């Protein structure tokens, strides 16, 4: 019993440690707004010590009428939302370069969105619907492994809707520019035995087409998403099934003259989770199967392959890949005088197989014995409340990655130390992080079997030192964050395969943030940020600047949100994305909304290029919209 009392006391102390008065006035509208916000933030405050956090609460997502994760990413400091040449979400996309191993990780509840071959599954989930998501937490600066032990510079945690707070069944219909449409519905229930959530969505997303060399460049996509969650006591079961088809924009065409490249995919997930708050034991098992079939074709040449007759060009390909992923974790938490800690072990294994490879309609035997990777991780973390105004936190993790075939195995180590001070109006957080990260299987595979390299790249290592100071006074909160990010042995493509940069990459990051709280849980928020990347490896400095002004509030039966996102990067025309959403609830059962994105038509655009594998000739297409000028309108009805 004393243990429980202490745990409750410590948890509450940590929660309250970060709370500041939010109640601006005592009108009923303001009280209800404050109650909604405080109830939403109660989970957030538990996690403040895990890193630098930005939360999109349930109310925020409603007001913003968020339709997909990419809209969240666009509002995240230090990165820009971008898409690959296949039209897939890829915030760190650079032509021909691999995804940074520590770039971004996305979770739904405890599940990492991951595929064994391609790594980060943001590519799949970035543009999918989010109607089953309750709130989103965005952590930057390699946060604590309490969020998930696969760390990254940006960690996005999405949490599914809470049946107790939803307590409804509803259906919604959305229509938008270019003939887009979406139909969705969900039902929730809760009783003494447990709770359930069932959700389904059909989305037919038409996007602005471009034309180049008489080829149509399309990023249209169609998907169906089913998600269910059943909780019984300490157990939670989840099932998700997603299927869809998408046009893959430029495909891999080196001359940027694709012929209807497209991809079909199916994603199946089943998960079990267990949490016992009294004993501090948590566990989960996640199983995922992902299959995708990609057809690619080019008017001229798509690529070349080596045969006994030498290099032979081909103009179309069909590739089917099936990936299985399983991960299991066991964690035990402890609480003692002034301290909380946990120890855990996680195992995961991924298998991938190229089931069909056709070049110009003929089967091609891909010579690979590499089709599995397994990782075992041990981790420990802790926090210690020195007194009512100071906390220290620390964590350490070791991973052993085992690759089959004769691929190299990786031993990885990461750790983090932090100090947090809360002096009432003044709050400061400082963290130092070190970690090493293995390349994704795709890079290792291509290095060995496509580029015929005998060696594998080294693990990439990251060191981040950061501090953030916040001043709060009733309705105002002002913060300044500064960080230095040093990457050693950064993974890159050098034209003949994947290797490591010799020089370190040093990036200085600065973020200024001001939040002004408005009645009815509204707010005005301004973020101004910059990434200053120093010259390295004969590459010039690369500085990126951004600003986000965001206003949202509720007024009676109306919700209002508007945001202006500014981004400037080297070699790009500065982008301004003005968006706005207005929601009206004429009755308790019905709500209507209208939303516009890229209203000015001046959001940041992307440039792409292809390289002829024989002549080295470069073909470019510039000024492609990543965030289209778009209007949505929709209705929701509660039964």
């Amino acid at each position: 019993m004393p243990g429980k009392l202490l745990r409750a006391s410590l948890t509450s102390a940590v929660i309250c440690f970060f709370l500041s008065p939010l109640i601006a006035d005592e009108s009923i509208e303001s009280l209800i707004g404050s109650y909604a916000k405080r109830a939403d933030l109660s989970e957030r405050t538990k996690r403040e010590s895990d890193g630098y956090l930005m939360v999109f609460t349930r109310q925020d997502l409603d007001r913003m009428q968020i339709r997909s994760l990419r809209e969240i990413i666009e509002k995240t400091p230090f990165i820009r939302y971008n898409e690959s040449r296949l039209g897939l979400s890829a915030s760190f996309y650079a032509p021909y370069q691999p995804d940074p191993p520590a770039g971004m990780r996305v979770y739904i509840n405890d599940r990492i969105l991951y595929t064994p071959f391609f790594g980060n599954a943001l590519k799949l989930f970035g543009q999918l619907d989010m109607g089953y998501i309750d709130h989103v937490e965005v952590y930057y600066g390699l946060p604590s492994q309490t969020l998930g032990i696969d760390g990254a510079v940006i960690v996005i945690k999405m949490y599914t809707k809470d049946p107790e707070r939803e307590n409804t069944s509803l259906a919604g219909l959305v229509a938008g520019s270019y003939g887009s449409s979406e139909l969705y519905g969900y039902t929730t229930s809760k009783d003494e035995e447990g709770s359930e959530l069932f959700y389904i969505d059909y989305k037919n997303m038409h996007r602005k087409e471009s034309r180049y060399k008489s080829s149509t460049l399309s990023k249209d996509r169609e998907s169906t998403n089913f998600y269910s969650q059943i909780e019984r006591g300490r157990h939670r079961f989840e099932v998700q099934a997603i299927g869809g088809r998408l046009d893959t924009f430029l495909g891999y065409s080196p001359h940027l003259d694709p012929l209807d490249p497209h991809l079909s995919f199916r994603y199946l997930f089943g998960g079990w989770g267990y949490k016992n708050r009294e004993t501090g034991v948590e566990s989960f098992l996640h199983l995922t199967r992902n299959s995708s079939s990609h057809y690619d074709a080019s008017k001229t040449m798509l690529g070349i392959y080596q045969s006994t007759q030498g290099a032979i060009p081909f103009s179309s390909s069909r590739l089917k890949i099936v990936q299985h992923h399983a991960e299991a974790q066991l964690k035990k938490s402890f609480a003692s005088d002034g301290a909380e800690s946990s120890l855990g072990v996680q195992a995961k294994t991924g298998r991938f197989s190229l089931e069909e490879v056709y070049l110009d309609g003929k089967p091609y035997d891909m010579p690979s014995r590499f089709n599995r990777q397994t990782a075992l991780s041990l981790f420990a973390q802790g926090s210690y409340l020195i007194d009512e105004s100071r906390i220290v936190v620390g964590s350490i993790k070791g991973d052993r990655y085992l690759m089959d075939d004769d691929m190299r195995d990786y031993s990885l180590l990461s750790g983090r130390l932090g100090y947090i001070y809360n002096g009432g109006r003044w709050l400061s957080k400082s963290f130092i992080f070190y970690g090493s990260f293995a390349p994704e299987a795709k890079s290792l595979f291509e290095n060995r079997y496509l580029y015929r390299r005998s060696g594998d790249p080294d693990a990439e290592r990251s060191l981040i030192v950061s501090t953030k100071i916040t001043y709060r006074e009733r309705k105002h909160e002002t913060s300044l964050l500064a960080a230095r990010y040093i990457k050693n042995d950064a993974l890159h493509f050098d034209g003949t395969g994947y290797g490591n940069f010799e020089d370190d990459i040093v990036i200085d990051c600065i973020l200024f943030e001001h939040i002004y709280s408005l009645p009815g849980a509204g707010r005005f928020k301004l973020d101004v940020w910059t990434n200053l990347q120093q010259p390295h490896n004969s590459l010039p400095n690369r500085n990126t600047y951004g600003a986000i002004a965001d206003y949202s509030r509720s007024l009676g039966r109306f919700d209002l949100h508007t945001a202006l996102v500014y981004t400037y990067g080297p070699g790009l025309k500065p982008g301004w994305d003005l968006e706005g959403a207005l929601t009206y609830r004429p009755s308790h059962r019905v709500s209507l909304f209208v939303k516009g994105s890229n209203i000015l038509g001046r959001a940041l655009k992307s440039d792409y290029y292809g390289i002829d594998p024989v002549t080295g000739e470069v073909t470019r297409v510039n000024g492609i919209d990543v965030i289209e000028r778009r209007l949505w309108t929709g209705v929701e009805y509660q039964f």
Partner: protein
Amino acid sequence: MDRSGVSVLKSAALLLFLLTLSLAGSPDSIKAKIIGKVATSLLDVSVAFIYTDDPAYEKIFEEEENLIETKSCSDADMVLSSRLEEYRSICPPTSQRLYFATSYDDYLKNRDAAVGAFFWQKGRPNLILNEKRLKELKIRLPSEFDNYIE
């Protein structure tokens, strides 16, 4: 550390918990303020006597100066429950004893008697005030409640 040291630390942690909780304005304390404001406005009194059997409202009114929680529904100005039908025979609704639901389903079942409801739905707290019942009871509310009457 000896037992006395552990005891001091436990006391300190508990004190910290109580101190920070009272300063913070927890969701429960705001919920209590909302119920207090609604109850006193409906009853046109400065202090209302309230009875509840809903575990979600257990002990949250202790710090709310406009509300006094009663142990029996018969002593209450307002019955706050998600099972209002159970009180119809023992504490029937009158103009001196208002029914207020804490679930939408219960509100719909007892719409003839409930003057309103406060509940979570679609991820947000909802306040509904029953226009028909307000008219029957000749209750006039301040204009700040207009958006919640339906």
